[in-house]
């Protein structure tokens, strides 16, 4: 699966990326983490407040750093 982190490089986006990586590892899934930093591409997902989390092209969360457990549930 492909997990995308939407955010222009703020601290929260880095934190969300780490949590997503940890969540994928904990769930035992092979996931490719992609960072999307271009603001127009980010907005194209319909996101208005970063950071955002996209799993297989579906926006699942916005404006919040999800915990590892929260992400695991979404995978």
């Amino acid at each position, binding site marked *: 699966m492909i997990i995308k982190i939407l955010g222009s490089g703020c601290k929260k986006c880095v934190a969300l990326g780490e949590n997503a990586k940890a969540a994928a590892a904990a769930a035992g899934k092979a996931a490719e983490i992609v960072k999307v930093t271009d*603001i127009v591409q980010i907005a194209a997902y319909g996101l208005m407040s970063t950071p955002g989390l996209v799993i297989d092209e579906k926006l699942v969360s916005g*404006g919040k750093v999800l915990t590892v457990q929260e992400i695991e549930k979404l995978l």
Partner: protein
Amino acid sequence: MNIFGWLNDQLLRMQWLSDLVTAGVSAAGLDPTSRLGGSVQFFVYDVIKIFILLSVLIFAISYVQSFFPPERTRRILGGRSGIWANTLAALLGTITPFCSCSSIPIFIGFTAAGLPLAITFSFLISSPLVDLASVILLASIFNWPIALAYVAVGLVVAVVGGTLIGRAGMEDQVAEFVRSVPVQDNDQTMTRIERLAFARDQVVEIVHRVWPYVLIGVAIGAAIHNWVPADIITALLGQENWWSVPLATLIGIPMYADIFGTLPIAEALVAKGVGLGTVLAFMMAVTALSLPSIIMLKRVVKTPLLMLFLAVVTGGILGIGVLFNAVTHWFI
């Protein structure tokens, strides 16, 4: 004794800090009335004052903002039109996040949800131009009448600008992909603890982002304050020159800085006798328009709409500058 005046002097203008820094400068063997001593005093006092006010204000305002995420603002504005809807959009613009970098996602999010351009642009103009932190800083550096007048004219520019853009019938002048962006409504309610944490994170993030601009702004302000002769500045930007407002606006537009960085420059310029309108025009041009944000906007709107937006905002800023210069004596 006037309690309000005292509170204003001590809490907002931080007279105690100015006295303390003056004493510190003297203790370090510098004469605070000399050029060098005066520059050091201005720099140290202004940097400390701006960072204290900035941190306290961002914390308080972010807490309020946590109740108005863009998704909620969009719901509030949805389905409305007319001058009151523009006014509401402009008012909501004052309590939404500071960064002009969030204006593109908000533009796309609002437009995709079918909000008219008039409403979206009222919001987009007011958002960087007028925010609560800048109002309190203006009150601290100048006085309350100037701060309130700044808010009032900022809102007028946003309402009139949005209305004009709406009237121009350019709903089709938006990049094609914008209309097909999905409308997401992932609005979560936050607990009080989460709001406090959000406010704290905002302080850290914003201070981290703006500190270089503040230092540069204060350094330029200190240089103007003590080293540049007043007659050179008034010759360039003096009130009697018709070109002072357009010149200040033109210099300000491509510059990218936070309002927090421009305030110390504004303070020093007013002290040198530059008209209030000229200084406000400069500040508004720096915050409302910048080269990076224009380039960004170019990717989501077509050229005619971009040009109209630039013309409307620039026109508004020029108008405000000329108006304030004509009535400076009411305020200072």
